[in-house]
């Protein structure tokens, strides 16, 4: 990996526990993410990885623990706070707005940057117009970056899976996030599409300096892209460190081979 100045912590979670009724999904998880790095979270299915992202986002509220983002510590995140402070994400089972076009979906990602009130919007004059055009430019730059010009006006519900994932990435990028959470961005893709997606992720990280937290199952991708890796299994934290360290860790190997541990 190239040299990065990765000392500054942008997000830290401390002792997070999350349960749904009697089902314990996360058990005392603590880790941090440094600004500018690519952090992977891996683990077998059902390990609690998506739930961890949901906690960071504010969609789930942990029963225990705290989240420190950009220096501010909270017992739980609220979705609006997470979004307005610079966290964006993609979802495991694509959460695009199926009734809208690609361009519109990406424009919704700009919603926090747009402010003009209802009346000006109704009249579509002055600040409302300028704002719409400015943000359209930003959206188009993202469309260029992701090479999806051809499907710009197509309703996303009709797009193939791989393209939908790209549009969803576009929507997340549109928010110009400081921390980007990607939940299995390469699921269901062939190797060509995975290479494209990997390239996008690296470009976003190097060109815009965006910190990335990534859930992924493809080990080669994880090893290639990540600066550091966190391993979860059954809600427990198994390992946390550099990719090659984690790969050699016996607990991690056991978990993936299905050997039960206490």
């Amino acid at each position, binding site marked *: 990996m190239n040299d990065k100045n990765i000392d500054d912590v942008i997000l830290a979670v401390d002792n997070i526990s999350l349960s749904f009724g009697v089902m314990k999904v996360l058990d005392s998880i603590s880790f941090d993410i440094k600004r500018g790095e690519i952090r992977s979270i891996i683990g077998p299915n059902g390990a609690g990885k998506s739930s961890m992202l*949901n906690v960071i986002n504010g969609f789930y509220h942990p029963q225990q623990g705290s989240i420190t983002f950009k220096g501010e510590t909270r017992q739980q995140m609220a979705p609006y706070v997470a979004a307005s402070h610079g966290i964006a994400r993609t*979802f495991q089972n694509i959460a695009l707005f199926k009734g809208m076009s690609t361009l519109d979906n990406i424009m919704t990602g700009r919603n926090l940057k747009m402010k003009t009130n209802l009346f000006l919007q109704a009249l579509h004059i002055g600040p409302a117009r300028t704002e719409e055009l400015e943000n359209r430019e930003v959206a188009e730059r993202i469309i260029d970056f992701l090479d999806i010009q051809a499907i710009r006006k197509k309703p996303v519900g009709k797009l193939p899976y791989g393209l939908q994932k790209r549009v969803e990435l576009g929507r997340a990028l549109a928010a110009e996030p400081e921390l980007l959470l990607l939940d299995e961005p390469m699921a269901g893709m062939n190797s060509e599409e995975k290479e494209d997606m990997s390239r996008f992720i690296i470009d976003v990280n190097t060109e815009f300096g965006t910190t990335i937290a990534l859930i992924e199952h493809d080990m080669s991708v994880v090893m290639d892209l990540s600066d550091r890796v966190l391993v979860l299994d059954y809600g427990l934290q198994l390992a946390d460190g550099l990719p090659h360290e984690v790969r050699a860790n016996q607990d991690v190997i056991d978990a993936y081979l299905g050997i039960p541990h206490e």
Partner: protein
Amino acid sequence: MTFFIEVVLSGLMAGVMYSLVALGFVLIFKASGIFNFAQGVMALFAALTLVGFMEKFGMPVWLAIAGTIGVMIALAWLIERLMLRHLVNQEPIILFMATIGLAYVLEGAGDILWGSDVKLLDIGIPQGASDWMLDTFDIYVEKLEVFAAVTAAILVVFLAVFFQKTRIGRALRAVADDHQAALSVGISLHTIWVIVWSVAGIVALVAGIMWGSKSGVQFSLSLIALKALPVLILGGFTSVPGAIIGGMIIGVGEKVAEVYLGPFVGGAIENWFAYMLALAFLLFRPQGLFGERIIERV
């Protein structure tokens, strides 16, 4: 004190009547995921057909009832053929709006076939006040309403057993969850739907008989469908016992409010009280008394 008990009892009985209609809703929702707005009109249509058979064709009661059941089954088959099978896997709101359309079609058809004047329905259910209750407790109770309550209880038991224990019941629950998944394990959606809507039609007939015996067969019967909504909210859309309990709560609530609060605000509170009650309920418990709490996943 006896007056209060009478009001409550009267409310309970009214509630049972609501529950009968709500039962039909629950059936269809449980088994096909559709909220059948036309349930009230189906009750009206069934009652109209029954009366029509008895009066226009001079059939004896038992034959007329059998005939009406046949009509409701045929209707279920038609609904499946012409409407449901073309709407497989559509969003719930589209299905709901289709049932509104269905309600209008049935209403118009009922009017054209049997005429829109009010009809008397008398199939021999005991009418009038229960002398026994009057003598023993000095409380006024309608025999008809007791009859309805007992019928409802029998229906509930029957339906509960049907859903839980039989193979068809299981298939119905599968269909309610996911049309395509049910198809993929070989459940014939079409047969299931015809069965469900037939049973709902028969339940509608029972409701229609009870309501019709009580206040005559007329258009306002179909408005009961709207009243059933608060019942379902309280009781949950998928719970058979919930429909009964929800109905009784609404029935009692309405009657008590009308009698005790009504005079202060000019009366006719019954028009909206049930909905406000349901609304208040929803704010605290969005899934109703018996509904299942849905955990959203992203």
